[in-house]
């Protein structure tokens, strides 16, 4: 039996599903407005952009503010390991449009911004073609905005600021977008997979989502067939790795949630359920749904140094702790990876990564610090070895990539 919901329908490698096929396959939405928000609550749908905030609660917070209101459909997938949002927009654009329109109806917004990464050309083309198939009355509420290629572009205050004045940089909160977003109006910023899922809940109900709901995961790294997989909530990590062709050899650890997620030792990872709340209870994060096994012959210290160096380079450079703290953490990780560490480096990494969270306008430093702390735990022996013996014995040098 197929478990596909979001990606059900025609072959994903072909053209995007047209409006006629989409309507014939899924039928009309049965729930809208406050009833849909109740169903989102009932299904306990969590945002799929990374933060995992309850979607119904977010919609209600925008609906409760004085109008006019705005919806931003967030399709700026800046996470380098994630491909699920662009695949969804490319293959099932009408489901995303349905979700955006339903969200606008539920929060009583008269304007919808499709915020799509500038590098996601195929996704943007498909969304524009789909928009052209919608009735003029609906189409008029939409505008398209192309997000600059940068990790922080998809952060919700950055999305708001880009729409307002063409600068995709995070802003200090408060006010948060639900209070004052696009042109000062209450604004719902919602990831496209969350919107598409809401469009399915509008047809099948919250109880359906609780029992049979799915999510998109990008399986990458040490697997035979990297790609996007749709799977039931609660599926064990091992199962999606197997569906991606399985690992070609022994696995030492797994990066869950993307660059903002965390490393987990392989032995602890296989049985973890891909469910945002159950992962949170186990002190892990589903993040944006990236699952990336790391082969046993790769170096966890080196991979972490490479990722954190990337994240440091992607800082918006607005907040001192992110510019200097994250920069220093990245430099220290590189020193350790290359066997050039100072005697205090491990202690400093521990202290700096503990001091960083909560000290930026956005969560960029928090995510990087969380990744570092997971690396210090999972690769503790490797860190000690690099530090004490001043070198790396793994097969891959610092320049190698996770994927």
């Amino acid at each position, binding site marked *: 039996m197929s478990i596909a919901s979001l990606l059900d329908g025609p072959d994903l490698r072909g053209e995007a599903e047209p409006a006629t096929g989409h309507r014939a396959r899924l039928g009309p939405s049965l729930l809208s407005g406050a009833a849909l928000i109740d169903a989102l609550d009932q299904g306990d749908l969590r945002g799929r952009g990374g933060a995992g905030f309850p979607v119904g609660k977010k919609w209600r917070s925008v609906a409760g503010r004085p109008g006019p209101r705005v919806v931003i459909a967030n399709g700026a997938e800046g996470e380098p390991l994630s491909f699920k949002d662009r695949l969804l927009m490319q293959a099932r654009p009408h489901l995303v449009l349905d979700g955006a329109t339903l969200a606008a109806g539920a929060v009583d917004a008269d304007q919808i911004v499709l915020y799509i990464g500038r590098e996601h050309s195929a996704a943007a083309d498909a969304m524009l073609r789909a928009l052209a198939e919608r009735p003029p009355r609906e189409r008029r509420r939409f505008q398209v905005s192309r997000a600059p290629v940068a990790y922080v572009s998809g952060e919700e205050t950055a999305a708001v600021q880009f729409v307002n004045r063409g600068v995709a940089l995070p*802003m*200090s*909160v*408060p006010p948060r977008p639900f209070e004052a977003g696009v042109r000062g109006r209450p604004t719902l910023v919602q990831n496209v997979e969350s919107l598409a899922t809401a469009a399915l809940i509008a047809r099948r109900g919250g109880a359906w989502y609780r029992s049979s709901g799915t999510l998109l995961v990008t399986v990458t790294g040490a697997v035979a067939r990297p790609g996007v997989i749709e799977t039931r909530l609660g599926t064990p990590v091992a199962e999606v790795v197997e569906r991606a062709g399985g690992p070609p050899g022994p696995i030492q650890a797994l990066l869950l949630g993307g660059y903002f997620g965390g490393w987990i030792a392989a032995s602890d990872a296989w049985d973890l359920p891909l469910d945002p709340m159950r992962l949170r209870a186990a002190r892990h994060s589903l993040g944006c749904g990236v699952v990336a096994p790391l082969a046993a012959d790769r170096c966890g210290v080196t991979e972490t140094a490479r990722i954190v160096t990337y994240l440091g380079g992607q800082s918006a450079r*607005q*907040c*001192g*702790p*992110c510019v*200097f*703290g994250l920069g*220093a953490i990245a430099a220290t990780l590189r020193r350790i990876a290359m066997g050039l560490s100072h005697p205090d480096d491990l202690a400093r990494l521990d202290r*700096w990564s503990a*001091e960083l969270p*909560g*000290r*930026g*306008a956005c*969560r960029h430093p928090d995510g990087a610090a969380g990744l570092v702390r997971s690396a210090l735990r999972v690769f503790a022996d490797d860190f000690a070895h690099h530090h004490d013996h001043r070198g790396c014995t793994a097969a891959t040098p610092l320049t190698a990539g996770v994927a």
Partner: protein
Amino acid sequence: MSELSARRWEGSPGVARLGTSSRLSLGVDRIRCDGRGYCAELLPEMIRLDDWGYPIVSSERVPDHLLDHARRAVATCPLLAVRLAEDGRSR
């Protein structure tokens, strides 16, 4: 506890935290903050600086006996980056 004994408690060494707490907490606008460090000078009980001079702020509510110092830290910041409010934390 009488007012007099409450004052005596507050005056005792090491028990400053036993004082009553306001509803207010501190926050920093991280984009405005330039690491001048006045806030940590004026309210070291709740603000310290990291290795680059940027503030690390206690998330606790400001105790009543430190409120005047907290207000001074807010007023002295040359970049108007320090906040004191109910749920004043920036995040």
